[in-house]
C-alpha cells in the first residue's frame, strides 16, 4: 500500500568563486533618446540572466526594462567576464553593470545640472526623467539630457566598471578564512508516496522557500526553483551513470539513463523569502544553483518518514527502496535469542 511521508532539506550556498578572483566588467551606453545599451561578457544560458541584468541597468538609470538592450557573448565586442558559473551573474556581473550605469548617470547629471539650475548631487533619475530630488515637477527627460550631453556638450553618456567579490584566502592548515563574499539559504519540504509493495516513490509536492536577497525578477526566480527541483528529483530517484568492469559507461543514452519528465514533476509552491544584501546590486544575491541543492535531501527524508528505511546511496530507485523495505521486514521477523 502507499505510505505518505514528509521530509525537510535545508541548505546554504555561496555566491561566486571560492577565494579566487572572478571579476566582471561592463559598459553601459545611454542612447540619445534615453534608451540604453549594456555590454556584458557573460552568456545567456537559458536562465534569463540578460533580462535580470537589463533590469539592474534600467533601475540604476531610472528607465524601464524594455528601454535597455543587452549585448552579450562576443569577445570582440563585450568586456571580460568570468561567465555563467557559480551562481554569480546577478551578484557579480550585476554589480559591475550597476556601477557602469552609475558612471553613465553621473555624466547625465553633469549635463542636466545647468539645465535645472542645481548641483549634480541634487539630482535623481526616476520614471525616465532626471529630476531635482523632492521636486519632481523640476525635471527634464533622460532623452533630452542624453541628446544634449552627446550632441551639444560632446560628452556621450557612457560608463564602464568592473567588480570582483571581496574574499580572504583560507589558511591551508585550518581552512579558516572568508572564501565567499555572501551566501544564500533555502529550505524545501517534500511530500511523497512510497508504495511498500513495489518500492516506487512518487513526489507529490514540494514547498520551496528560497533566499536570493532582493528578487530582481520574481518570475525568473520561480523558474530557476522549478528547474532546480526537476534536477533534484532526478538525482534523488532516477539518474545514475553506470559502468561495466572495464570502466565503460553502459547507459550512455536517454533510453536507459532515466531522468524526470514533466510527468514526474511534483506540485511546486515557491516562496521567495524577504532578504536584502547590502553588498549586492539593489540587495540581490543569486539563486541559480541553490535551487537544485536541497531537493534530493528533502525527498530522501520523506521516504524515510514514509516507510522507515534510510537510503544512504543515491539514487533511491524502486529496486533499492523495495530491497530496504524487505530487509527491514526481515529484520523485524528475527527470532529473539
Amino acid at each position, binding site marked *: 500500500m502507499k505510505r505518505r511521508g514528509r521530509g525537510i532539506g535545508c*541548505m546554504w550556498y555561496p555566491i561566486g568563486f571560492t577565494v579566487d578572483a572572478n571579476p566582471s566588467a561592463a559598459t553601459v551606453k545611454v542612447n540619445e533618446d534615453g534608451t540604453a545599451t549594456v555590454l556584458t561578457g557573460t552568456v545567456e544560458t537559458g536562465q534569463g540572466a540578460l*533580462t535580470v541584468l537589463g533590469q539592474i541597468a534600467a533601475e540604476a538609470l531610472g*528607465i524601464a526594462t524594455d528601454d535597455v538592450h543587452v549585448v552579450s*557573448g562576443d569577445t570582440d565586442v563585450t568586456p571580460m567576464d568570468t*561567465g555563467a558559473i557559480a551562481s554569480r551573474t546577478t551578484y557579480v556581473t550585476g554589480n559591475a553593470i550597476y556601477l557602469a550605469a552609475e558612471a553613465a548617470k553621473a555624466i547625465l547629471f553633469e549635463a542636466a545640472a545647468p539645465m535645472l539650475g542645481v548641483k549634480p548631487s541634487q539630482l535623481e533619475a526616476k520614471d525616465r526623467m532626471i529630476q531635482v530630488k523632492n521636486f519632481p515637477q523640476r525635471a527634464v527627460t533622460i532623452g533630452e539630457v542624453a541628446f544634449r550631453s552627446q550632441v551639444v556638450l560632446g560628452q556621450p553618456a557612457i560608463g564602464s566598471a568592473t567588480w570582483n567579490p571581496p574574499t580572504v584566502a583560507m589558511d591551508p592548515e585550518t581552512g579558516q578564512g572568508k572564501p565567499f563574499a555572501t551566501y544564500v539559504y533555502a*529550505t524545501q519540504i517534500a511530500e511523497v508516496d512510497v508504495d511498500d509493495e513495489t518500492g516506487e516513490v512518487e513526489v507529490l509536492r514540494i514547498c520551496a522557500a528560497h533566499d536570493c536577497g532582493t528578487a530582481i525578477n520574481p518570475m*525568473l526566480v520561480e523558474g530557476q526553483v522549478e528547474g532546480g527541483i526537476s534536477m533534484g528529483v532526478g538525482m534523488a530517484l532516477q539518474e545514475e551513470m553506470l559502468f561495466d568492469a572495464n*570502466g565503460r559507461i553502459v547507459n*550512455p543514452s536517454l533510453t536507459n*539513463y532515466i531522468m524526470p519528465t514533466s510527468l514526474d514533476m511534483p506540485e511546486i509552491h515557491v516562496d521567495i523569502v524577504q532578504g536584502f544584501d547590502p553588498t549586492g546590486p539593489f540587495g540581490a544575491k543569486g539563486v541559480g544553483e541553490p535551487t537544485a541543492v536541497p531537493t534530493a535531501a528533502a525527498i530522501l527524508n520523506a521516504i524515510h518518514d514514509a516507510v522507515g528505511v534510510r537510503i544512504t546511496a543515491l539514487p533511491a530507485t524502486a529496486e533499492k527502496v523495495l530491497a530496504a523495505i524487505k530487509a527491514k521486514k526481515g529484520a523485524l521477523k528475527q527470532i529473539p535469542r
Partner: protein
Amino acid sequence: MDDKTEVLEREQLDIEILRDVNLRLPAVVPREAFPAVPLTVDARLQTRAVGQRATRPDCRMHGLGQTKYIDDIKLPGMLYARIKRAGISSARIKCIDTSAAEAMPGVMAVVIGEEIPVNSFGPTFQDQPVLAADRVFHAGDGVAAVAAVTEQIANEALEKIVVEYEPLPAVFDPIDAMRDDAPKVHAPNSNIYATKVVRKGDVEKGFAESDHIFEGRFSTQMIEHVSLEPHAAIADWDATGRLTIYATIGRITLARADMARTLKLPMSRIRLIGTTVGGNFGGKNEISQEPALALLSKKTGRPVKGVFTRSEEFTSSTTRHPIIMDYKSGVTKEGRIVARQIRLVLDGGAYCSWSATTLGKACILSPGPYKIDNVLTEAFVVYTNKTMTGAMRGFGAPQVCFAYESHMDDIAKGLGKDQLEIRLLNAFDEGSSSPTGQVLHSVVVKETLNKAAARFGWESQS
C-alpha cells in the same frame, strides 16, 4: 485583451498548417503572424524595473521555435567533424593510422593529438588533452578528429581509423584508487590530486562533551547534465589568420584564453562568440573539441562544425562527482550539535576539470547551515579511469546536503525530536560564524525553514 488573444490563436493555427505541409523544414512564422504592434508585456514597461516580473526578450522567439541554436547555423562551405573515441579506459597508444580515412572521398582533413600545439587544458591543472596523444586515461578520450563534407562521411571515416593500444592497468573505484599500491592514473603522481581541510574548535573535545554520538555513511552517484543541446561549436580560421569560434559555452572569456593557450595564438587573433545556449548547468564551462575543430579549419580553409552525439555527452563531457561521505556528530540531549567530523572522498574521474572547486565547496558547506563550534572536515579528490567529473549545478553541495540532512533526521529520530525543531535549534543566525570562521551577514535560514513549513502545513509530531 481580446485582440491579443486573437493574434496568438491565429499564429498557432498558421504554424500548425505549415508543419502539416512540410514536416522536414523548420517551421517558419508567416509574415502575417507578426503583430502590427510589438506585444510588450506591461512589466517590461514599468519604471522601478527591479522587482518586476518582466518577460525575457528572447521568450517570443523561443515560443515560436525561431531561436537559432548552433545546429541551425550553416556557413558557406562548412565541413562536419566527428571525433574517434578510444573505447578503452587505460592504454598506451602505440600507433594511429589515419591513411585509409584520409583517402576516402569527401574526407577533407584528419587531426590527431600530436598536431595540437599545446595539447592540454583545464581550469586548475592542465591535465586534460584535447585529443589523447600517447596515453588514454578514460574510454571517452578522443584520439582523432575528422572533417568531411557530410556528417555521415565523417562517421564512416572514424571506422577506418586504426589505433593500436597497449592496455594498461586501470582503477575505477575512488577508495581503491587512494591505496598506495593502486595503479596511478597520471603516474607517477598520487591519485589523490587535491585535498582540503576545514578545522574549527576541537572535535575530540566536542565529542567528549556530547550526550550522544551519531554516525553515518552516505554516497551519491555520477550524473550527467543532459542539456537538451549537446556540446557544439563551429571553427572558422580565415585567410587573414584570424580564428572565429562559435560555441555553445557559458564562459567566453575563459574559453578564448584556453584557445589561445592550446593553439599558441595571440588572444587578439581569436574571436569567441557565445551562441544561444540550450542548457548549461555547469557542463559548458570550458572548451572541449574546439581546438581540434580550429586545426581542421586551418587545414582545410573551411569552417568546421562539430556537434557531440548524446552518447558523447555521457562518455566525453564532464559529470557530477560521486562522493562518499562519512559523518560523525556529537549532540546534547536537547539536540544541539556540539561537534561534527566529516570525511569526503570525491571520485574525480580521469581529469581535474572543476574538481578543485567542487572539493572546496563540498568541504566548506558539508557541516550544513548550522552553528557548530567544533568542526573537522577532510576532503580528498582522486583520479579514476572514468569520465571526468567537473562543474555541475551546486559544485558538490547537493551531495553533501543529502548527507547532512539525512544525518540530521537520523539525529532527530534518535532523540525523539521534531525534524523542523531540531533544525531551528541549530540553524545559523545573523552574525553566526561559519565553519571557516566567516561572520555571516544577511542570514535567513530560519526564515526559509519557517516559510516552507507554513506553506507545507508542517505540524510537529514530537
